[in-house]
């Protein structure tokens, strides 16, 4: 099962469809209620970041299988302005948009694996994985 599904994020409604896709895939893989909520919330945060900071981008969700270990990977891609201070955005309470500043550090805590790559003026790629226990 290596089907990758992507949702373009251009407006607030796309965030909802990205979330729904994630929830359905998580359900299919056999994630429990709590993990489903974690995954959908993480997708919601990542999609909202794309909408708020990059304007447009996409969320890709794929089931993964590593030596029998199953999981779900979320990849958020955009060609936006990039993140200048990655260390800072990973701190709780740091925000440039007047929000709570809990988005990215929150996603890191909600998921099992987290990586972020960003180049100023080129774009950002964030990947987060949740393993099925």
């Amino acid at each position, binding site marked *: 099962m290596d089907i990758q599904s992507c949702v373009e994020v251009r407006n*607030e409604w796309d965030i909802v469809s990205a979330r729904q896709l994630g929830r359905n895939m998580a359900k299919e893989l056999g994630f429990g209620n709590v993990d489903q909520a974690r995954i*959908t919330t993480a997708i*919601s945060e990542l999609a909202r970041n794309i909408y708020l900071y990059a304007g447009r981008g996409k969320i890709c969700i794929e089931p993964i299988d590593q030596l029998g270990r199953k999981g779900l990977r979320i990849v958020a891609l955009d060609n936006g302005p990039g993140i200048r201070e990655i260390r800072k955005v990973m701190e709780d309470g740091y925000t440039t948009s007047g929000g709570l500043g809990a988005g990215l550090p929150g996603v890191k805590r909600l998921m099992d694996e987290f990586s972020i790559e960003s180049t100023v003026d080129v774009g950002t790629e964030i990947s987060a994985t949740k393993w099925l226990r």
Partner: protein
Amino acid sequence: MQKIIRNEIIESKLYVVGVQEKLDNLIVQMINENQETLKNHWLKEVNLFKEKELAGYTTTLKLSEETDQQFFELLIKHINYHDISKDGTLDQFFDQVLHTGLPLKYLTQGLQVARRVILNLLVETESDKEKLAAVYREIDSWLDPILNRVIENSSQIWERTVSIQKTALLELSAPLIPVFKNISVMPLIGSIDTERAKLIMENLLNGVIKYRSEVVLIDITGVPVVDTMVAHHIIQAADAVRLLGSTCILVGIRPEIAQTIVSLGIDLSLFPTKSTLQKGMENALEITNQQLISNE
């Protein structure tokens, strides 16, 4: 017959005045004379398109032969009029087709096929390039307004539907219900976006004043995802209610939502929270010094 038409077209070129009109009439005449052939070609192409593109629709919706026949007859009729808005039957037909849920592409394809078959017929009988160009322009000037009209009508129908649904949705989105004296409830169901968040804040504050609520319960049982944005808006709303001197209680927090809120590191300790509306209501009665007394 073909020869006569050709000669007449050549003749018409000689007259500067009324050339356009004459060309018009000639094309119309020709279309009328060859109606059957045109119709057969048209039906064939449209059916081909229907089989290929509308396979999903044909089973569920009636794409009957009758509709096709009617479509083509109306087209011919309106070409005769030189005016598409005459008597409004074409508009009515399009409305009818769109309202039965048939796709717009059926109509646009039908019109494009009509253009193609008419032009094919004229190309067969005419070889002079200049005249062909004139004929092309002529046919375009008849069919383009119809095409524009169809698209306009269809987008109007959609716009209307969307705006009606939007209003309906807004009416449902953030109701504040006074339940007991000084106690109101705002049940939230579905996703919360920025627009709705604004409405929640407005309704909450207006309602607090209007109903003189001392306690407002915000019920998020029906909110599927509580992310930082939703939490932020709820915190702001609760804070604003606090400024008015009332208390806001957040109820309907499901266990999985509680866990994600903790993982996100959101601080909701500024106001009381309860797992269910019932517990929240008990708390609210306590705050307002009220009691429910049973009659037994």
